[in-house]
């Protein structure tokens, strides 16, 4: 199968839906500009015209309401936000209106709406340009929350999200946009609300999503070398959360670690661990664990920011601790020298 980048997978899914259903449109700051939202909307304007692909003023809240209005009329808007922080301005429309509309109207109206939010770390972004607020949205009944980790999933989950008749918050970690993966040319859907078991094992369950899935995959390789076999669950969707897949796995392995993509206090990992505890607490062989982003506002300087994020070593070490083992540094590959960039080709400025 051909390999393409994550950002191109997003673009392909969008282009497919735009061509398949003329009710779909894309709106967002910078959507038709030369950078095309990290390459995810490149040339869509040229291909589909300015009624389907367009920019907007800096009106995040208003634009969300406008999208809701078009959705009520049967359209299927996709909104993009280059940082989740900009979307915070539109929480009112997302949470009070879009999320509840179908229930409030007793099913008479629906809001098929995809809101793409770019999250994650990088290059001195500072406290207001790198948050990961998945848990906020997952707390709200009526929203769906999706978070792909691979180009394949990005395409399939985005198509499903656009076809879904509900408001879907679609989180893209910035460091994934440039990653490569196998992606079929034809269209396909990945069901929302179902997790994906990426690796099968018996000793421990590792649960994660988004960018941390890519790091966890490497951790699993290393752990395998140390004869620890891992069930690696990539959540794909955070809401609805696939409790069944999680529970089945943990029932088997009896050990579990959740690698959060955000802050761990009151975070996604808290929900997962609490669910496991209420159902399987007394069957576990070791106390469950969560790791994730340090609970601080993320500083701009790379020298402090680097301590905020879990990495390969943190994950491997945490798993080994469940078995009372220590990590052998020799077995860990060299870390990317600069922990504030996704790869060595990245030269800034954002």
């Amino acid at each position, binding site marked *: 199968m051909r390999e393409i980048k994550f950002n191109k997978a997003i673009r392909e899914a969008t282009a497919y839906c735009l061509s398949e259903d003329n009710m779909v*449109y894309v709106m967002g700051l910078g959507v038709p500009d030369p950078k095309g939202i990290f390459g995810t909307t490149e040339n869509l304007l040229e291909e589909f015209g300015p*009624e389907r692909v367009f920019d*907007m*003023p800096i*009106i995040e*809240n*208003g*634009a*969300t*309401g*406008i*999208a*809701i*209005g*078009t*959705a*009520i*009329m*049967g*359209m299927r808007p996709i909104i993009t936000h280059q940082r989740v922080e900009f979307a915070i301005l539109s929480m*009112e*429309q997302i949470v*009070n*209106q879009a999320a509840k509309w*179908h*229930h*409030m*109207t*007793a*099913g*008479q*109206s*629906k*809001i*098929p709406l995809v809101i793409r939010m770019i999250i994650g770390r990088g290059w001195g972004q500072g406290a207001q340009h790198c948050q990961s607020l998945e848990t906020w949205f997952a707390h709200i*009944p*009526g929203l*769906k929350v999706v978070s792909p980790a691979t180009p394949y999933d990005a395409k399939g989950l985005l198509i499903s999200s656009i076809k879904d*008749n*509900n408001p879907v918050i679609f989180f893209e970690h910035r460091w994934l946009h440039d990653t490569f993966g196998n992606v079929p040319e034809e269209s396909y859907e990945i069901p929302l609300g179902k997790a994906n078991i990426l690796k099968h094992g018996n000793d421990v369950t590792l649960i994660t999503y988004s960018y941390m899935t890519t790091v966890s995959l490497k951790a699993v390789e290393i752990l395998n070398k140390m004869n620890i076999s891992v069930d690696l669950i990539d959540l794909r969707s955070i809401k609805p959360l696939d409790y069944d897949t999680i529970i089945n796995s943990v029932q088997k392995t009896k050990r579990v670690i959740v690698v959060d993509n955000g802050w761990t206090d009151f975070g996604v990992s808290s929900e997962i661990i609490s669910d496991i505890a209420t159902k399987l607490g007394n069957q576990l062989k070791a106390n469950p664990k969560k790791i994730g982003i340090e609970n601080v506002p993320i500083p701009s300087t790379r020298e402090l920011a680097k301590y905020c994020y879990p990495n390969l070593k943190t994950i491997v070490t945490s798993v080994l601790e469940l078995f009372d083992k220590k990590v052998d540094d020799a077995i860990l590959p060299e870390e990317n020298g600069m922990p504030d960039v996704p790869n060595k080709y990245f030269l800034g400025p954002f």
Partner: protein
Amino acid sequence: MKDLKIIKNIEKKLLYEMYRIRNIEFKIAEYYSEQEMRCPVHLSIGQEAVAVGICSYLKKSDSVLSAHRSHAHYVAKGGSLEKMLGELYGKETGCAQGKGGSMHLIDLDAGFLAAVPIVGSTIPIAVGTAWAKKLKRDTSKTVVFLGEGATETGVFHESLGFAALHNVPIIFICENNLYSVYTHLRDRQSPNRSLKEIVEGHGIKHFHGNGNSVEDVSSIFREGTFENENNAPVFFEFDTYRWLEHCGPNYDDHLKYREDSEVSMWKDRCPINTFEKKLIDEGILSHQELEKYLEKLNIEIEEAFKKAKKSSFLSKEHLYEKIYSD
């Protein structure tokens, strides 16, 4: 109310529609104390002329959106009375099967798309509605009712900016009743503020009129919408006044947040009395005719209440239904 459709005389229809709203609202106020309509209610008494002056010139296929104070708009747009009362009583016969309550009226058949209680929130939603119609080459109108308080919100301005930029055929109707809850304009807006200038600064035509005169409202509305047939947004501001408390069934004159003289001045300018007197003076309407209408109206209203009271509630399993759409 079917009868209205056969009343050829448009003036009479306007008066009757205003009476209909007022009598429904007073009946809600009366029955509210029975503690069976267990949700907040924001009544429209005193503001009937705006709703009627606008909605009487809308077609069924035109769309209306509103906010917390939406009964008048819903009724004037032809929303089902039975469904509205059912909703206030929380019953499954309600327009949202009781899930919404008074602050979330909806009647898609009548073109009443939505009302929500977060001030300002339906403004962009209405702009989106109108814009979708334009994109779909649907020429029916979209009207959003808002209070003057809502013009303070950020999202109001964002919505105007977008509507002007994309030439969205949205019709804004601002009912300026001087108050946001108990707070007078003077405590919220600078004396140097001009809504007209703001709206026109956004690039949108602004019309202003006496919201207690149903004739003024409808003639200004028709003039303004004519001017804006080629998709431009248009803004109407009407001065009017709410008689009862902000939320709830009672007068609140004892609270003294507004001068008695102000209240009585506005009551003297009652949109119904002044217009009724005119129609009678001009011989367009007779007392007897009006009496007959009001009797029928009374029966219609009482029956709708009876039906609402008699209806059942949704059963528990509906709580978990329709959280997501299939």
